[in-house]
């Protein structure tokens, strides 16, 4: 475990050095983040111009859901997806053999072998957005709620990460399904809305099948001090279960890996 952490530390240092070499990217990334944020906020602004509250969510609390959405996405795109993109190609070409040969757990290597440090801009943007939302509300969150909110941010990221690993495992059996991650991204896009706004089948899918509610809505409710204890426990438990399942499936997939090379 310590060994894996040290490897990740080295990888992080290399990625940071590479990022510093392309400092101009900082401006481009920043401009892109701002543009995407504007695009994300637009439907919300249109919606709340016509209505004061929707399904119990007013504008400032819905902004907090969007802040969580940005934060989870920033962490994933900064930490997990840069390494993940190579994985499918490596499985197809057989270069994955070299990953397996290395004396570090393969899951660690494919989850955190490359980083995109500039994604920190998105993370800072998320914090700024949440602060703005609380400024709109006129009162900050209670200390205990901040604690729970941060804890649920971690479990939310873990839940999303578990889904990614499941996709990665799928690509062992069905080669060339790299666009599964696009599909996942498209579905994760719904996480910018509080799940209660959706009705019927939609809400069921987003709560239980693809648990985007666990990633943004419940953490936001925790930060707002609205989450009851049972839902909080279920959220944490659900994320951990998902993580354990994904680890199991990953191990199974690795075992059935037949090299494409040689």
């Amino acid at each position, binding site marked *: 475990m310590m060994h894996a952490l040290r490897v990740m530390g080295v990888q992080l240092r290399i990625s940071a050095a590479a990022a510093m070499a392309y400092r101009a990217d900082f401006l481009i990334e920043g401009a892109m983040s701002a543009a995407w944020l504007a695009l994300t906020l637009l439907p919300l602004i249109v919606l709340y111009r016509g209505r004061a509250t929707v399904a119990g969510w007013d504008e400032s609390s819905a902004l907090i859901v969007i802040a969580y959405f940005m934060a989870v996405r920033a962490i994933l795109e900064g930490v997990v997806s840069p390494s993940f993109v190579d994985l499918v190609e490596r499985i197809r070409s057989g270069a994955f053999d070299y990953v397996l040969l290395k004396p570090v757990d393969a899951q660690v290597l494919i989850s955190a072998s490359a980083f995109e440090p500039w994604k920190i801009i998105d993370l800072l943007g998320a914090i700024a957005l949440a602060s703005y939302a609380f400024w709109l509300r006129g009162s900050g969150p209670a200390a205990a709620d901040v604690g729970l909110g941060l804890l649920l941010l971690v479990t939310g990221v873990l839940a999303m990460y578990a889904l990614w690993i499941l996709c990665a495992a799928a690509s062992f059996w069905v080669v060339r399904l790299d666009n599964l991650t*696009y599909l996942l991204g498209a579905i994760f*896009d719904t996480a910018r809305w509080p799940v209660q706004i959706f009705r019927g089948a939609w809400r069921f899918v987003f709560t239980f099948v693809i648990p985007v509610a666990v990633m943004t809505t419940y953490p936001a409710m925790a930060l707002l001090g609205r989450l009851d204890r049972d839902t909080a426990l279920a959220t944490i438990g659900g994320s951990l279960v998902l993580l354990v399942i994904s680890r199991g499936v990953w191990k199974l997939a690795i075992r059935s890996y037949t090299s494409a090379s040689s």
Partner: protein
Amino acid sequence: MSSRTLRAIPTLLRIGVAETVAYRAEFLVWILTTTLPLVMLGLWTSVAEEAPFRGYTGADFIAYYLATLIVRNLTGSWVAWQISEEIRLGSMSMRLLRPIHPFIVFGASHVAAIPFRSLVAVPIAVILLVSSGASTLTHDPLQLALIVPSIILAWIITFSLMFALGSLAFFITKSMALLNIYFGLFSLLSGYLLPLPLMPDWIATIARWAPFRFMLSAPVELMTRNLDAGDLTELLVGQTAWCVACLALALWVWNEGVRRFEAVGG
């Protein structure tokens, strides 16, 4: 178009169908990625359940977003990715050796995928008719007759613009970032994200003249709204004009790009 090119087209279409069938799983996942209209549909129908939202009822939203899904499904294009990938890897050289313009070859492979894409679009169209009823759809026979030509024009505009964007990879290496910007503008100005009348005024004004509206919103409006003669003319004249402009742009960027093409790889 020379007769030789014309004779090649049936073969190109057959190849396209074979490719689509070979990569069916991948293809299906791509189609499923177009979830945004469905999410927006779920969102706005539950918002409109309490009371109509700025004149839009739940049925209006259902009709709008299902029509969006159909048009997007039939007109979607991935040629920009194909071109920039081939330029990056060097396999473009092979295409340039062939005696047919790549615009035709890529176009044929896209057209060949349409029957497969219809497998998704047609059931949605049926759901649209059954669920939101005829009340929110157009009855005007002229408009009904114009839906197909309008979708074809939208297809040509989308394909040409994507072809031009892909050809930019001849000039710059970071053309993928441009595609992100393109998609952002598209979802904002084409009516993909929200019906254009719901947009803030200044965005709606830009959208009225930009090409994006004619790639998606135009056929959707034909299906879901009763337009007067003035609106109808504006939509179709706009579509035709942008169609010609985008075709010219695509071929121009391509020709300029090919001239400075240096093959990568062997």
